[in-house]
């Protein structure tokens, strides 16, 4: 997202709550985790921004910082540009406002992240595991995940041929 777009956002939310960072290839805007829903509504419907396409939502686990960062990729047909929003939550009690009400498709992305990284999204309509079976233990995409030896009496390893 361009700096101009950031200006519009900063006017509304203040420069100390949302931080612009252009060290990476796609510059991103850091948003505090309790404001993410408001920012998303604003950025989607603002007549000069119109980031109406929701591209993806990913979660990244940083065990040494004890944080899980959620990365939102949005796209605007009007500006023909990508917008990256980042919000990070505590790794021990990961909780965040759901943005399912802004983009319906975010609901499934959030369920996937709940499934693989264990983040809880508040006010989500159906916060259940999406990909893995319901009785799965642990969150595989966390860096410290260890595979169990058995799952429902099926071995999880195979001997190398001798």
């Amino acid at each position, binding site marked *: 997202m361009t700096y101009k777009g950031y200006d519009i956002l900063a006017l509304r939310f203040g420069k100390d709550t949302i931080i612009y960072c252009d060290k*990476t*290839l*796609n510059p991103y805007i850091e948003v505090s985790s309790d404001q993410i829903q408001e920012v998303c509504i604003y950025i989607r419907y603002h007549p000069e921004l119109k980031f*109406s*396409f*929701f*591209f*993806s939502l*990913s979660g*990244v*686990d940083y065990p040494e910082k004890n944080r899980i960062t959620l*990365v939102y*990729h949005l*796209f605007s*047909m009007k500006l*023909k540009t*990508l917008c*990256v929003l980042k919000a990070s939550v505590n790794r021990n009690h990961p909780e965040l406002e759901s943005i399912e009400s802004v*983009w*319906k*498709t*975010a*609901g*499934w*992305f959030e369920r996937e992240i709940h499934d*693989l990284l264990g983040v809880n999204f508040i006010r989500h309509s159906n916060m259940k*595991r*999406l*990909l*893995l*079976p319901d009785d799965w233990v642990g969150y*595989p*995409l966390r860096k410290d*995940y260890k595979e169990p030896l058995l799952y429902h009496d099926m071995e999880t390893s195979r001997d190398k041929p001798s």
Partner: protein
Amino acid sequence: MLKNQLSHLKPQATPFMEEMILNMGPQHPSTHGVLNFLIITDGEVIHQALPNVGYLHRGIEKLAEQTPYTTFIPFTDRIDYLSAMFANHVYVMAVETLANIEVPERGEYLRVIACELNRIASHLISTGALALDIGASTPFVHWIRERECINDIMEALCGARLTYSYMRVGGVSRDISQNIKDAVLKFLDHFEPIIDEYNRLISFNGIFIKRLANVAIISQVDAVNFGLVGPNLRGSGIEMDIRRAIPYGVYDRFDFKIPIGLGFQGTLGDSYDRYFVRILEMKESCSIVRQALETLPPGDIRTKIKRNLKIRENECYTCVESARGEMGIYLVSDGSDRPYRLKIKTGSFTAMSIVEKISQGLMVADLIALIGSLDVVAPEIDR
């Protein structure tokens, strides 16, 4: 008289409201790959269809964190086996963007040729399987015959029929020879009239139109809200194509149209529009391949890169227009020789999430038409 007697016997009975829960899949010929639907129906009318995915979740994103950058390419083939070239492309593009590697022009052109041929092959399966799903098995066999021709070309070009691994970081693996060029041109000459023949066979067939037109209409608002991409989004009449919106590679040098749904046989955004957009796209792909072959520049096909590629701390998001719409990769590097985090965003994932909403009030047989016209592929949903 009889009715009165019955009502006397069973005062609470409501003979026309009887909910039934049906379990469709995961082993089912009509769902594309292993999908499971929990369908709550009243007779033939669906009240709700709840998709249950994850039967093919292979943990590719976790495997990426254990695999060096250059050796991850074969895994990307398996994300979407019908159009493996695009997954190859988006992954190598992400690595090239992060490592700042230039691709030679000839390499880019070869990528375009391979991708567009693959788009045709993928649409052949998707349109053919849609016809098969709703009960016409002849078109599918016709399309499989054409697909075999593309498979032969791909085999000569990449060495594999299905899982190509053609792209390399910095270019492509093999150059195109004059024989293959001739074979491609011969195939295009043969294939373009076949599309019209196919249209005569099935696209303008009255029964086929009745099964698809005005069925499972997706409005423009819903399409954007549910994050539909690619032909599904364009079927609803929104002109959004990553090749135009965020140009990548050398796509800005080719002249091609972006077909959108116009309500060809019914309402805008119905199953027939999504189907017919794919047919039109195949023609465009043929034209792109021709243009690329005509203007194919000489030179290298690949930049030499270090064997042990290490990328300093950075992140990027790249996306391509795959056969199922936008496919994106969010890649985070941390200075080592393997990704810190790799997130794959696919078109089928979002397409699947709309089924729950659109299926309400459809007939059971129309659900098949909806899934077929959305062209979902199970491994792309689950990864």
